[in-house]
């Protein structure tokens, strides 16, 4: 299908994706309704990146990725080329684990990449395996994503048949198997060491650090690269066009493009491919080429800039660029490319409660501050919403937060108080616990009056004076 049949940029076969004007490095095929087939992939330049890689040395491919400063798209934003460099030499076998367990609230771009262009992801996996000498690849797809699973399975079957995956790839000495694995419903499995535990057939609980990177000790105790779906999907374009061409998009420290899912009270919520680092939140939320502003008759109240784990932003942050460093300094994170926009009708306490409820439900239970703390936060917020709040509850919420994440918690500037930069400190193994604190601290700092109004709304308990001896 072509652009003309798209309604206001939306495409019927890819709900949510907006095919707007702008560079398309990783969503270039989404407008085709058969974009997930090998025939379409090959007809649109598919597997040319793999062929280009195979014509050079593995080390040269790694250098290209390093030169492009490809930042990880899963949430932490660590440069992939550097992460790849952490593999200890000579400790074979090395493995590649693809993190397709996308479940951060507000985030969806990996699902679209897996459903709409699975061959692009497979090609990216092959390029990574070739560059680093990875002997097998495990493509872990979130359990709830049935369509992504079947598109990847079908694409792998086609690719094996066509000689792109498996033994003697494209007639060369490069051989690697890609096996799809899939989860069964657990947010925490998106954490890379939990993902490895799950892939080993165990409860998906994060491993104790150090070692901090699975590149040292990963799957079966072997050096393992864990990369996000979107990160790997960038590699085919990069191999065909080169790091220099890649760096012509985006900013110097954040080159290329990134996918952002922008949801909430908007005219045109959608998933957009956006130039990384140069576009601002304002352009993305209000621009004609993007979300076209807040729904009619309403104003922006707040927004979550980087998925459910991120501290919240407000109108004065709209001119920040979509780039990790300035967003971090302003007290939040760009995270997983998920922006949730809330207008002036939104109850800040209720919105915070819902995000906290998510973390309470998804805590794996390994670390006490998170397991107990997130649950307490949720229960206290719930009672405030139910009109049962106590005057001490605001301090109690902050105190519980301090037990999960000690010290000043990352938060935006407000009323003369300075921003606390990201990331938070933590008493837990993984960042899930501290994530539960983000909505609480963000909303208490900004909308304390909303909390107080709910707490004092409670009718005083009448004191009945019972005469002594009257009970008999």
């Amino acid at each position, binding site marked *: 299908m072509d652009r003309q049949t798209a309604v206001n940029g939306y495409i019927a076969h890819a*709900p*949510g994706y907006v095919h707007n004007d702008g560079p398309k490095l990783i969503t270039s095929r989404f407008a085709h309704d058969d974009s997930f087939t090998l025939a379409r992939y090959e007809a649109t330049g598919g597997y040319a990146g793999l062929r280009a890689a195979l014509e050079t*040395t*593995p*080390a040269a491919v790694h250098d290209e990725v390093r030169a492009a400063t490809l930042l990880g798209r899963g949430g932490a934003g660590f440069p992939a080329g550097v992460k790849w460099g952490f593999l200890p030499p000579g400790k*074979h*076998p090395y493995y590649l684990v693809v993190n397709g367990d996308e*479940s*951060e*609230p*507000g985030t*969806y771009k990996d*699902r679209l990449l897996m459903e709409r262009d699975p061959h692009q992801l497979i090609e990216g996996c092959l390029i990574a395996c070739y560059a680093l000498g*990875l*002997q097998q690849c*495990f493509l872990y797809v979130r*359990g709830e*994503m*049935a*369509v992504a*699973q*079947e598109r*990847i*399975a*079908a694409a*792998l*079957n086609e690719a*094996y*048949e066509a000689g792109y995956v*498996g*033994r003697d790839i494209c007639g*060369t*000495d*490069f051989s690697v*198997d890609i*096996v*799809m694995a*899939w*989860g*069964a*419903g*657990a*947010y925490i499995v998106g954490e890379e060491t939990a993902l490895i535990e*799950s892939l*080993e*057939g*165990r*409860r998906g*609980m994060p491993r104790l650090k150090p070692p901090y990177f699975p590149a040292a000790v990963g799957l*079966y*105790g*072997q050096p393992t690269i864990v990369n996000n779906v979107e990160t790997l999907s960038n590699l085919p374009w990069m191999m065909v066009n080169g790091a220099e061409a890649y760096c012509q998009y985006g900013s110097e420290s954040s080159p290329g493009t990134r996918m952002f899912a922008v*949801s*909430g*009270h908007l005219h045109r*919520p959608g998933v957009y491919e956006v130039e990384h680092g140069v576009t601002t939140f304002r352009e993305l939320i209000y621009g004609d080429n993007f979300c076209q502003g807040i729904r009619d008759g309403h104003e922006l109240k707040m927004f979550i800039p980087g998925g459910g784990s991120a501290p919240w932003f407000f109108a004065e942050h709209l001119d920040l660029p979509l780039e990790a460093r300035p967003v971090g300094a302003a007290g939040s994170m760009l995270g997983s490319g998920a922006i949730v926009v*809330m207008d002036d009708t939104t109850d800040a306490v*209720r919105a915070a409660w*819902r995000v906290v409820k*998510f973390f309470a439900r998804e805590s794996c239970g390994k670390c006490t501050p998170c397991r107990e703390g997130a649950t307490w936060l949720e229960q206290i917020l719930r009672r405030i919403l139910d009109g049962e709040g106590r005057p001490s509850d605001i301090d109690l919420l902050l105190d519980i937060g301090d037990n999960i994440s000690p010290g000043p918690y990352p938060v935006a500037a407000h009323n003369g108080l300075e921003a606390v930069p990201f990331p938070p400190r933590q008493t837990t193994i993984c960042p899930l616990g501290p994530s539960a604190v983000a909505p609480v601290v963000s909303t208490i700092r900004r909308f304390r009056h909303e909390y107080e109004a709910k707490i004092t709304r409670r009718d005083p308990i009448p004191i009945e004076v019972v005469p002594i001896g009257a009970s008999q």
Partner: protein
Amino acid sequence: MTLSPANEALAAEIIGWFPRARSALIPLLHLAQEQDGYLTDDAMRRVGELVGATPAEVKGTAGFYEMFRFEPVGTYMINVCTNISCLLWGGEELLEHACESLEVEVGGTTDDGMFTVEEAECIAACTEAPCLQVNYRYRGRVTPDDFDRLVEDLRAGRAGIDGHGLLARVRQSIPAERLAGVLPPEQAREAPVWLARNGAAS
């Protein structure tokens, strides 16, 4: 019941793709759930034998993951998202409507065994809020009327959705002659041959 002969064959193939059999545990549990609609004790015991895990280890692992069910559920599992983006567009109200119209509590199954309603966490369709999944197939921007029509279609078998347990309708399959070869890590200590292309630099 335990695994059918066809699923035994599939299980053996899947186990062969992993360097360690235990890695096939979750895929095989999905296979068992696809077969029976939920995980029976017999199927879990058999899966444990196949991957070298005790029944307690199998259940202990399966119990961590929300999608695995130990008791029968409705033919159609309806997961209504109420997480933040859906909350903003009436996800909680949609869940309430689902429960009222089907006369079940959250987590409950209708008397005829057709529907189970669950409250879901973010299912990655946030711009299509409020959204839901029926047996992990998406429906977006769902109004109460849409929901009622969906239920009618499901009852009439017109929705094109399979019974609970089946996820992907296409399975991965690797022709034996195309498989690069899977070895346990201790038997794969050699550097891959193509790294020799780096020459002296490696």
